[in-house]
């Protein structure tokens, strides 16, 4: 589904502050696979997200979605295939707009927007049904500005929005990091259900060793702009958080305090 061919990303090329963010990344993720990614700060996780989402254009190499070369497409032009959930739970929704407006905006992702009313009675019924499945009582608050919702509620709504319009890839950029433990479990559960329902590929960046091991089919470790460790199946299941931290530490990268604390 997603394929990266020799992707290299250099920031500030040719200047004294030049940084090689991604150094020849080859990666193929088939449809239906759930991949978790860990790595220390500066390992290239965010750059990987940027290259896949289209916010960063690779200096070299190609990005393919369903066999189509999208290397030069900006993020908004890839939105039909790639649904994103950000690390900041407030970033995925528009605070001043109502819940209904936010859902309607996502409901037209990747298709031509028309000169027809965005929020119709029929669509509101669909939105209420979708929101009811979150179990947060949000189905009664369609007209409320999203700014009135809590961070956890907003991340749940962003997750719901990502699942609309059947994306081919869910791109989850540390989307659980800023949530409290209970909300985190709820949003993770919603993430897995969305992945199952869509049968899409999912790429989840995480700082939690436990999530990286327990969630998904395959685990990648990144360091210095490369994918240095790639495990799946029983080998992945046999990993322990401490062992994973050792792997990262053994690469010469110091795991961040946050990763150690999150265990």
């Amino acid at each position, binding site marked *: 589904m997603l394929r990266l061919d020799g992707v290299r990303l250099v920031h500030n090329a040719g200047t004294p502050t030049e940084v090689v963010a991604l150094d020849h990344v080859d990666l193929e993720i088939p449809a239906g696979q759930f991949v978790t990614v860990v790595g220390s700060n500066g390992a290239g996780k965010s750059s990987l997200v940027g290259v896949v989402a289209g916010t960063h254009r690779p200096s070299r190499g190609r990005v393919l979605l369903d066999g189509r070369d999208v290397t030069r497409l900006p993020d*908004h*032009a890839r939105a039909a295939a790639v649904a994103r959930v950000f690390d900041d739970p407030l970033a*995925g929704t528009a605070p001043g707009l109502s819940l209904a407006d936010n859902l309607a905006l996502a409901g037209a992702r990747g298709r031509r*927007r028309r000169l027809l009313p965005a929020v119709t009675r029929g669509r509101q019924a669909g939105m209420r049904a979708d929101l009811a499945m979150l179990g947060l009582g949000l189905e009664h608050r369609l007209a409320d500005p999203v700014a009135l919702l809590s961070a956890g509620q907003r991340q749940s709504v962003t997750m719901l929005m990502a699942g609309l319009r059947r994306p081919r890839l869910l791109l989850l950029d540390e989307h659980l990091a800023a949530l409290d433990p209970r909300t985190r479990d709820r949003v993770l559960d919603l993430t897995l259900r969305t992945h199952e329902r869509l049968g899409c590929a999912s790429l989840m960046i995480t700082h939690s060793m436990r999530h990286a091991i327990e969630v998904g089919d395959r685990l990648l470790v990144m360091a210095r702009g490369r994918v240095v460790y790639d495990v799946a199946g029983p080998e992945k299941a046999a990993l322990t958080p401490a062992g994973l931290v050792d792997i990262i530490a053994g690469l010469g990268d110091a795991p961040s305090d946050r990763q150690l604390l999150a265990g």
Partner: protein
Amino acid sequence: MRYLLTDTLIAGLPLVPVVMGIYLVIRIRQDFDLTVDGSLTLGGALAAVLLNHGAGVPLAMLVAVAGAAAAGLVTTGLHLMFRIPVILAGLVMSIGMTTLNLRLLGRPSISLGDGGTLFSGLAGLAPDVRDWLTVAILAAFAGVFLAAVGYLLLTEIGLALRATGVNARMARAQGVDDRRSLALCLALANASAGLSGALIVQSQGFADSGTGTGTLLAGVGAVMLGELITRPGGASRVGRVIVAVLAGTLVYRLVLVGALRAGLQATDLAGITALTLVAAVALNRYLPELGRSLRRGSPARRPRGAAATVKEVG
């Protein structure tokens, strides 16, 4: 005091489109576009020149609107191609357009001939009747215009426009082309200014190269007054936005007309505009706090929430 109401309406209603346009830029895109100063004059100049050359009213007004919209697109182009901030691109445009407008008019001010404006049918009527019919024609334009913009904002395209102003990163992730949204916003804002220019020129009977000067600032003042009155609160409440624009424009004009009636000179109006703006900002800042402290002690108001209806977005 007799003509206070009609004077306010005749001076205020033609400005409703441009204030709506300015609202779109400053509140929905969170940006400032000074091009409107030039576009308002351009719209007026195009309409006046075409009418004086015997063109029909619909054609003259259409060209005025289209020309002003094109100015907005040029500003967008300057911003996107050369990475000039919108406010600076607009400033450059408004200065450049001063020359364009003077060239168009041929001299600083031209008067419209007797025949063929929106209001020429009213020429022989009694002053009172003529004033009220003028108000009716202007109100019809303002009403249709506000309804059209209100509808546009509620459509999928309008929703995308509102979203880019609130959270551009999220809008792009939802597939909205930021650049196209900006082009739409500035084209619409300047088209609105062009329409206002064409209405002003026809209602006052002459076109002046200085008509548009200070439009943006006046519009910002009107928007703030309107928000003070209706508290629109968020880009999802399109109905309230429209009421805010209408009320703000008219109250703002009422202040100026009132100032003239109170004996101030036309040369004092710039100062009154500035004072009104400062007062609106100050009131916007402190009135809610004053309201809160007055309410304290009375039963706590429920926050807007579960009880809010879906009427305004449906």
